[in-house]
């Protein structure tokens, strides 16, 4: 009888251990794998140990078995808690179907080894003023509206307001509208839902397909509700500012739809750090990376707290693209009252480009000065005097150190 019980316990225990191992091999992310490994692992090992105790049957064996069991029951939860915390802090990626992150804002999620390109996400209490760090392709804080340009009004411009979701999207987009009222003749509100992101389920564990589908349907429904609310709010804002606006709702691949829509507009206004999932599926840093990869038309990146730009820094690296970008910036006629500062990076041809850009800006009747000396191409530009409100770069210079540093300082960036 005892022998039978021992055999049963041994078989059941090793079967549970095997299930735990299958879970570790099959489940989609480190946190779910941990769930399988520790719970099922302890039960499996514990049953095997109990089986051994019954099979030996003497006091010495039982003492050891009970000791090991007690020890395992005490240590395994502690070890798995420490590992889970470390995995979270170390930035282990989560399964796409995860829809509550209860540690968000409690623990800082940093970068360890998973994805070197990802920027660390600070804890909520570490960044008291989200407005200062929030970046957007064209985002103004609650700044005073821009005055009408002193120069003759430029040609009518079409503005594409891409309604990407996120907690701060509505006030930022509204501030952008107020600031651009002077130069925008027509606004297109593009309400866009990125279906590939919202419907992504990632690898699904055995039997999880139903729940994965339910989750993505839930995400899509929530995103539709949020998108409708945001669109209504923006339409209201446009009406209040007496700007003619058209509302367009699209669902599909955000990169394709947005690129196609941006091609027919002069300036694209986007909330950086927000993706077209209305805050449902992507972390802000991943959303920012995707936005950075999009090659849209002229994009203006302004920090939320920065008012209409007064001091504009133009970086010239000697390439034809940087020159063309500056020319496009001038042609757009944005930031008419701002003082332009033209700086050259320490790269071949940059000094000549600086002189040419100076001449071009003067020909356009803009207030302009050249920054003496050369800036290191990979470091933050150290500009004497006030920090610039706006930095003009060409689109291809996305990942250069200057932009990253300015992003960190929450100054504004224009990708022309």
């Amino acid at each position, binding site marked *: 009888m005892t022998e039978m019980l021992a*055999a049963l316990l*041994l078989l059941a*225990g090793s079967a549970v251990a095997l299930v735990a191992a299958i879970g*570790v091999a099959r489940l989609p992310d480190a946190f779910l794998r941990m769930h399988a490994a520790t719970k099922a692992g302890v039960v499996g090992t514990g049953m095997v140990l109990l089986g*051994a105790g019954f099979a030996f049957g003497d006091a010495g064996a039982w003492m050891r078995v009970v000791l*090991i069991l007690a020890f395992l029951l005490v240590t395994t939860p502690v070890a798995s808690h420490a*590992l889970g915390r470390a995995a979270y802090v170390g930035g282990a990626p989560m399964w796409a179907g995860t829809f509550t992150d209860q540690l968000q804002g409690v623990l800082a999620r940093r970068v360890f080894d998973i994805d070197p390109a990802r920027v660390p996400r600070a804890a909520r209490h570490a960044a008291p003023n989200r407005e200062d760090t929030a970046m957007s392709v064209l985002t103004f804080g609650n700044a005073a509206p821009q005055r009408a340009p002193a120069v003759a009004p430029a040609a009518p411009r079409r503005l594409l307001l891409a309604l990407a979701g996120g907690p701060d999207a509505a006030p930022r987009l509204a501030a952008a509208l107020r600031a651009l009222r002077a130069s925008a003749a027509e606004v297109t509100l593009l309400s866009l839902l990125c279906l590939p992101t919202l419907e992504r389920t990632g690898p699904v564990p055995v039997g999880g397909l139903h729940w994965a589908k339910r989750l993505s349907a839930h995400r899509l429904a929530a995103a539709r509700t949020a998108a409708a609310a945001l669109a209504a709010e923006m339409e209201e804002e446009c009406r209040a500012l007496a700007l003619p606006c058209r509302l367009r709702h699209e669902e599909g691949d955000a990169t394709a739809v947005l690129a196609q829509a941006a091609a027919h507009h002069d300036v694209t206004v986007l909330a950086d750090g927000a993706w077209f999932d209305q805050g449902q599926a992507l972390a802000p840093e991943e959303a920012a990376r995707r936005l950075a990869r999009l090659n849209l038309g002229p994009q203006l990146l302004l920090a939320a707290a920065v008012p209409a730009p007064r001091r504009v820094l133009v970086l010239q690296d000697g390439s034809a693209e940087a020159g063309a970008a500056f020319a496009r910036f001038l042609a757009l006629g944005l930031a008419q009252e701002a003082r332009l500062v033209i700086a050259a990076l320490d790269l071949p041809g940059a000094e000549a480009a600086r002189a040419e850009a100076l001449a071009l800006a003067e020909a356009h009747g803009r207030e302009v000065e050249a920054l003496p000396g050369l800036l290191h191409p990979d470091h933050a530009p150290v500009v004497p005097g006030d920090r610039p409100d706006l930095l003009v770069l060409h689109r291809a210079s996305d990942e250069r150190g200057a932009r990253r540093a300015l992003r960190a300082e929450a100054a504004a960036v224009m990708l022309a």
Partner: protein
Amino acid sequence: MIEVAVTLSALMIGAAVALTGWRMLRGPGVADRAVAMDLLGLLAVASAALMALSSGHLALLDIALGLGLVGFVGAIGVAAFIERASAREAGDD
């Protein structure tokens, strides 16, 4: 009867070790490897118990106890390492 059970259990534990080892080699992140290592420690305790049964040496149960200890200390160590290294990487605190 118990011999058959021990053999079958050993086969299942062996398969579990193979799957966990695959996960440990595959990664993809340090956290996944650490979890796999944690489970490998538990499986080692189980296989030590099975070996104690098949050989009849009680001393192998003491080894199981030692393995459990080492696995716990190892998991805590790896967790502390990941946390500290990621804090240094981020350059804050």
